[in-house]
């Protein structure tokens, strides 16, 4: 058994203000609960039936007295209420510079996922002195994310996102509890929140650990890193440099979302550029703000709230995507918006970059798998009925373009058509293919070109 304490650790910017308010409430309570019993005791002794005291003309009622003990407590109650309300609004106003961390609750475990894809079980590592926003959902029943040392708590609901933010102020390890009863092992659903210095946190982020891959599987002993150029300074909005968003983009492509949600507009689905954080007009004339809940609802139950001007043709993905995968898609869609979430600073690139990049022996095989994985196959269909032209026998053939000119489909043209896809579009097709310039590395483009070449060239079909 340990000693007797009255206040828990203070480890966030909320702890001090909440404790002060609590302390004032205790003092005000003592004013009543400490004095009233003595008044009662005095009266019951003084007016005990055995006492010979003046009992003439006992007052039946007194309006002034009634008003006094109505109005004074009312004023005190209003003071503490508005004080608490002010603090509450602060606790619910999420700073724009917050680091996003995704949290998934399930019976009886917490999963957390950092923006670089690093995943933890029943643990959460956060940097000191940075606002952290938790974007939380549950796989099964209602849970509640509770860190007493931070004085924060938020229920975590299935089928919906809730958020919570804090800024840690004290390095150390603190309890993480589930505060909403969730079944047999409810009391074991918890762990620790570790507050680290910012440099320690950066180092921790880059050590290999569990990572969630775009297909929803979990790989241990690795770390996802940026696959394209990353600024080494903190960036203000989540971008494709953020591996979780990148994983989301891969998923976005492999699911074929990309064939309808054409970012340049004109697709069957709306462009997703600058969607997150903005109001979306719906068919019924109302608007809805595209937050985590709206986006995930639009993925899972896609026909629920369709944007004005579009038909409800998107298949619902309920049951086909894990919570982790939905979170990755969210991170990607946020990265497309100027109002997206913010990423942690300085996601390190150097150390693991080399290890993560697979060395492909066979460029064609790599190109083929990329072709499927990023979803090219969804439009460039073999039977020629796709949104994009069929690629069999294209290499070295002469292609007629939109403006009537022709061009020889050599390597340079193929490269250009992948990297800046809308430069020279084949006649009869529209400019809907996304630009892969910033998303594919040179060797990946080369692999794709090799693959297209392998599909046969003009007059020399395999």
């Amino acid at each position, binding site marked *: 058994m340990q000693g007797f304490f009255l206040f828990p650790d203070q480890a966030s910017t909320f702890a001090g203000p909440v404790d002060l308010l609590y302390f004032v409430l205790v003092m005000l309570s003592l004013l009543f609960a400490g004095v009233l019993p003595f008044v009662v005791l005095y009266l019951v002794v003084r007016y005990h039936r055995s006492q010979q005291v003046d009992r003439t003309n*006992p007052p039946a009622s007194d309006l002034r007295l009634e008003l006094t003990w109505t109005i004074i407590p009312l004023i005190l109650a209003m003071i503490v209420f508005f004080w608490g309300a002010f603090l509450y609004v602060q606790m619910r106003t999420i700073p724009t510079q917050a680091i996003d961390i995704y949290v998934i609750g399930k019976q009886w475990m917490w999963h957390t996922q950092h923006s670089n894809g690093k995943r933890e079980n029943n643990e959460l590592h956060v940097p000191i002195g940075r606002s952290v926003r938790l974007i939380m959902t549950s796989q099964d029943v209602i849970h509640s994310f509770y860190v007493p040392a931070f004085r924060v708590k938020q229920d975590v609901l299935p089928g919906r996102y809730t958020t919570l933010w804090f800024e840690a102020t004290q390095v150390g390890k603190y309890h993480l509890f589930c505060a*909403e009863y969730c079944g*047999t092992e*409810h009391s074991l659903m918890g762990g620790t929140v570790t507050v680290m210095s910012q440099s320690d946190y950066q180092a921790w982020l880059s050590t290999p650990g569990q990572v969630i891959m775009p297909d929803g599987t979990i790989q241990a002993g690795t770390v996802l890193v940026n696959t394209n150029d990353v600024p080494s300074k903190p960036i203000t909005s989540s971008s494709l440099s953020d591996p979780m968003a990148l994983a989301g983009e891969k998923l976005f492509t492999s699911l074929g979302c990309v064939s309808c949600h054409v970012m340049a507009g004109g697709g069957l689905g709306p462009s997703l550029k600058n969607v997150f954080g903005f109001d979306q007009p719906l068919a019924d004339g109302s608007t809805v703000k595209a937050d985590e809940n709206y986006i995930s609802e639009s993925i899972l139950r896609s026909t629920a709230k369709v944007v004005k001007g579009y038909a409800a043709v998107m298949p619902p993905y309920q049951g086909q995507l894990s919570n982790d995968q939905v979170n990755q898609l969210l991170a990607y869609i946020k990265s497309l918006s100027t109002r997206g979430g913010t990423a942690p600073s300085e996601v390190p690139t150097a150390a693991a970059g080399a290890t993560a990049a697979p060395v492909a022996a066979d460029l064609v095989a790599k190109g083929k798998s990329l072709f499927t994985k990023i979803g090219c196959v969804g439009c460039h269909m073999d039977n020629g009925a796709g949104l994009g032209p069929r690629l069999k026998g294209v290499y070295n053939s002469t292609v007629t373009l939109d403006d009537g000119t022709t061009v020889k489909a050599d390597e340079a043209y193929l490269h250009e058509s992948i990297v800046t896809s809308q430069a020279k579009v084949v006649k009869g097709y529209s400019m809907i293919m996304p630009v892969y310039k910033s998303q594919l590395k040179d060797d990946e483009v080369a692999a794709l070109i090799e693959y297209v070449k392998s599909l046969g060239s003009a007059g020399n079909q395999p």
Partner: protein
Amino acid sequence: MSTTALINHYATNRATTASAWLKSWLLTVDHKRIAILYLISINVFFLLGGLAASAVRLELVTPQGDLMSADMYNRMFTLHGVIMVFFFLIPGIPSVLGNFLIPLMIGARDLAFPKLNLLSWYLYMGGGIFALCAAVFGGVDTGWTFYTPFSTSYSNSNVVLTIAGAFVMGFSSILTGLNFIITIHKMRAPGLTWFRLPLFIWAHYATSLIQILATPVVAIALLLVMVERIWHVGVFDPAIGGDPVLYQHLFWFYSHPAVYIMILPAMGVISELIATFSRRRIFGYEFVAFSSIAIAILGFLVWGHHMYVSSQSVYSGLVFGFITMLVAIPSAIKVFNWTATLYKGSISYRTPMLYALGFIGLFVIGGLTGIFLSVVAVDIHVTDTYFVVAHFHYVMVGGTMMAYLGGIHYWWPKMTGRMYNEAWGAISALVVFVGFNLTFFPQFVMGYLGMPRRYHVYPQEFQIYHVMSTAGSTILGIGFMIPLVYLLLSLRYGRLAGDNPWNAPGLEWQTNSPPPTFNFETQPIVTEEAYAFQPE
């Protein structure tokens, strides 16, 4: 006398054989007998709920789960909650004391619908048997709140049976409320105007309003849980298209007012006790009367304060917090008026008065910590912790239970014709008060430190508070056992009470103890306000 006064009176005027005697009880339409049926059954449920609480407290002596499995622990706190809330606290004072006293206090022969009153008892027993069957056939592990989608899609326990019990019990509550409202409106003795009514009647009137308006909502919510659980109709579970928070709205729309169903009658009892043992009219009678109505109305507008962290918007959090803060005012008015009643009174320290004074002390702490919880920023930290557990036990046990015991002692001579042992009475009141505080005060401290509720195992640093709490609960348990013994003994050995042992002016004291079947020999006519005490 060879037989007890209770049995003597209630048995001899109709029955001669054992089966006729049993029939005379089980088919009675006399509100006093029905009240005694309730008294016995409610106390049996209280004992069962208390046993479950003891199991919970014993398990929590050590941080590890060593006395029982997690599943058993979860079933125990659920059993404790379900029984205490639905089968003790909600029906408690209205069904026993209200049933017995409302007709007597207003000078009526019975309630407006005596057969409906008996039906209410059978519904109560039916609901109770459902809930007990659920416990016997393996228990239920959802907590008394039955939160979805855990209760509808994930729990592997007897949810439907338990909910059916609460559902059936709800009808008992609605019918009782209906009966009381009509009785109070239509059957008052000549001259008994609204402002001559004892405050006990005002409190029960306010309670009955809540019972008939709020109970149907929880009945619907519970029915929907059963429908979703049995037929998988998506109402609350998002996996099949439902909304899990919708359940919380429906549930708390009843269950918050239900707290006032528990505490308002208790406040009515306390008003009677303080008036009688100070020999004074309650100070500020109208303010106390209308504060009951104000609490009943405000009570309907604060359900969202159970849901500050359940994804509610900031604005709803602020509005619910504000209205919750307002509930503190009528509660404070009552406490101040009771205190002012003592001034220039002629006070005697009898057992009911000791319970009443204990009630004031504990209710003040329960009420003040309620203010902590309506300060939203503080509530976020302490909700779903032991702070909340301590708060509602201060209100429900410190409030309702103290008033129930005080009321039972006060009207015991009227109900049975016998006096209980005054010395043991004083001892029990003291033991309950000390045991209660030792049990629940440490829970405020550990709640603020972050100890979540409904935890089977917990971190080491909370052990000291749990040990104190369990020690206190042992004392509290003894405190509850003492009255059970001496009250039962008084049925045989207690001295005869006489019609008006407290020399009180209420109508219930103007008839025999125990009262005859139709209460009054002649129709009483009221010419004075309530609490017109004669100088001694």
